[in-house]
């Protein structure tokens, strides 16, 4: 056994962890009267350091440390890039946006929790063991429970936090129950050894146990990425939380859940074990049907919403459906398509929520606040239009290419249910135009209720510029910088 650990592959995680500890210690040691505003820049600095260290690691081949529980392979590289990029954008958003009433006191807690969630997500991308996967998932979940409930004076937030926590712990219990069956069959927590052990067990009854375990795991995890069985908490929680936290839940927490599912599905549930087995096709079909249901439900419900945060919550359920369909197609293209869509989706969601947080400034995100935005601040209106067009999946933007890639990967699956899902996805995309264009129309063609100029804040301008530039860059040149390291 090789004991020479190559610890340097963990340096991106370590630098995030050091930033968390540093912020925690500084908050205790510094005198009360010193302003804590700059903690946000410290956190941004930490993620930049982590990003830099991550870039130096890219030429490495597959490396594993800690008895194969922590691996740094192409999968980890691709998704760590997305998580670090999204995490940096979220921190910029948190630095730039105005905090809700009374939240100024909690700078330290906010950044520490956000970084902890980032840390948990990065552990998930690299972990190759059920225990580390579970602990990473819990790091993300528990810090997001607290993030949602941070504004403890608002009844709405209290309610949102309680809903979120109860749904979340129920989902954790169900996930673990599924994991316990999988562990029982394989007798190992190591994902790579799973497959080997599965093929050694000859008892046909274990196949059914395997599927049951998988169903529990799926139902529990679907809480994280808000698709059909466990999606109804999303609108209430998204509305009750602060806008930054909503952006975090919608862009970040969701993608982490999907990454975990992706890792499991491609290592443990790969087709080789279940290929000819009839249960496999049942399982695949049910995933596609659930994806189709989430698309339909999310888009249909979003049409009637007047609160923009609720609207984006339903739209995020629909996007969860698209991504799930891409994963469940199990075709040759699905890895590339889903990775691309994750990147695009996190970018445009963070961008859209940036503008929502800019305009509402901690108030209710009613649609009325957006009327006549083009007349008061054209720049914000145009940026929001770009993000909405990208969410709706129209040509010049990255959202179009992302959806196109997903469609190709679904059609490539080749069975009738795949075609039905693809047609459903196209139909639901057209339905989604109804609500995106309604808001756009009221921004451009109506007169504002009150003349109000929005002040420019530097971090938000950087953030918006980054989001828009990347959206157009990878929308017009989809293969630009196609990572050779993936």
């Amino acid at each position, binding site marked *: 056994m090789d004991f020479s650990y190559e610890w340097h592959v963990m340096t991106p995680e370590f630098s995030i962890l050091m930033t968390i500890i540093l912020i925690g210690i500084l908050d205790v040691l510094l005198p009360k009267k010193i302003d804590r505003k700059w903690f946000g820049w410290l956190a941004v600095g930490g993620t930049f350091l982590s990003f830099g260290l991550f870039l130096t690691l890219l030429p490495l081949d597959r490396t594993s440390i800690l008895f194969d529980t922590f691996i740094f392979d192409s999968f980890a590289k691709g998704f760590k890039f997305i998580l670090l990029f999204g995490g940096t954008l979220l921190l910029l958003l948190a630095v730039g946006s105005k905090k809700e009433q009374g939240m100024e006191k909690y700078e330290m807690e906010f950044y520490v929790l956000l970084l902890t969630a980032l840390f948990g997500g990065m552990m998930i991308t690299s972990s190759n063991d059920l*225990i580390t996967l*579970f602990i990473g998932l819990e790091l993300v979940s528990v810090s997001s429970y607290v993030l949602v409930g941070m504004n403890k004076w608002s009844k709405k937030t*209290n*309610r949102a*936090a309680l809903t979120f926590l109860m749904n979340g*712990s129920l989902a*954790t219990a169900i996930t673990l129950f599924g994991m*316990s069956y999988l*562990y029982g*069959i394989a007798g190992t927590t190591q994902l790579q050894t799973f497959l080997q052990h599965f093929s050694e067990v000859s008892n046909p009854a274990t196949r059914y146990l395997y599927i049951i375990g998988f169903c529990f795991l799926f139902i529990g995890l679907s809480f994280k990425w808000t698709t059909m069985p466990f999606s109804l908490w999303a609108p209430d929680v998204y509305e009750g939380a602060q806008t930054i936290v909503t952006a975090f839940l919608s862009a970040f927490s969701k993608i982490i859940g999907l990454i975990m599912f992706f890792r499991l599905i491609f290592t443990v549930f790969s087709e080789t074990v279940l290929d000819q087995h009839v249960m496999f096709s049942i399982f695949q079909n049910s995933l596609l049907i659930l994806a189709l249901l989430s698309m339909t439900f999310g888009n249909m419900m979003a049409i009637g919403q007047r609160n923009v945060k609720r609207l984006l919550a339903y739209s995020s359920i629909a996007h969860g459906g698209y991504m799930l369909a891409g994963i469940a197609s199990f075709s040759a293209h699905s890895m590339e398509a889903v990775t691309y869509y994750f990147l695009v989706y996190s970018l445009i969601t963070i961008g859209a929520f940036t503008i929502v947080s800019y305009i509402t400034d901690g108030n209710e995100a009613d649609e009325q606040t957006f009327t006549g935005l083009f007349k008061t601040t054209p720049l914000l209106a145009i940026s929001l239009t770009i993000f909405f067009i990208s969410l709706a999946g129209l040509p010049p933007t990255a959202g179009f290419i992302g959806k196109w890639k997903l469609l190709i990967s679904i059609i490539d699956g080749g069975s009738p249910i795949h075609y039905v899902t693809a047609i459903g996805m196209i139909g639901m995309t057209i339905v989604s135009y109804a609500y995106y264009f309604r808001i756009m129309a009221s921004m451009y063609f109506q007169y504002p209720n009150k003349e109000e100029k929005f002040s420019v804040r530097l971090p938000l301008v950087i953030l918006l510029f980054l989001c828009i530039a990347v959206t157009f860059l990878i929308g017009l040149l989809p293969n630009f910088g196609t990572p050779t390291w993936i």
Partner: protein
Amino acid sequence: MVSLSAYLTVALIVFCIGLFGALSHKNTLIVFLSIELMLNAVNLNFIAFTKYGFFPNISGQVIALFVMTVAALEVAIGLAILLTLYRNKKTIDLDEIY
């Protein structure tokens, strides 16, 4: 010797009782208790598989320890959130918080 299936059946029954309690009760504390019951069913499963599984080994017991820790963590956060809710609303009944 008690067979594996007996342990699994007990765990499944405990899990279902927990799930039923979590979905049907109106009192938030009872809901938390029910979720604990579900997590204990998970522990029972892991430990039974550690001894009687197809490939008996120790890592199931390690997971059981982690599950207990995480259960305590979730309840701690849950009670904190419940306390803030109680300060504002003076109730912990799930029907009345809306």
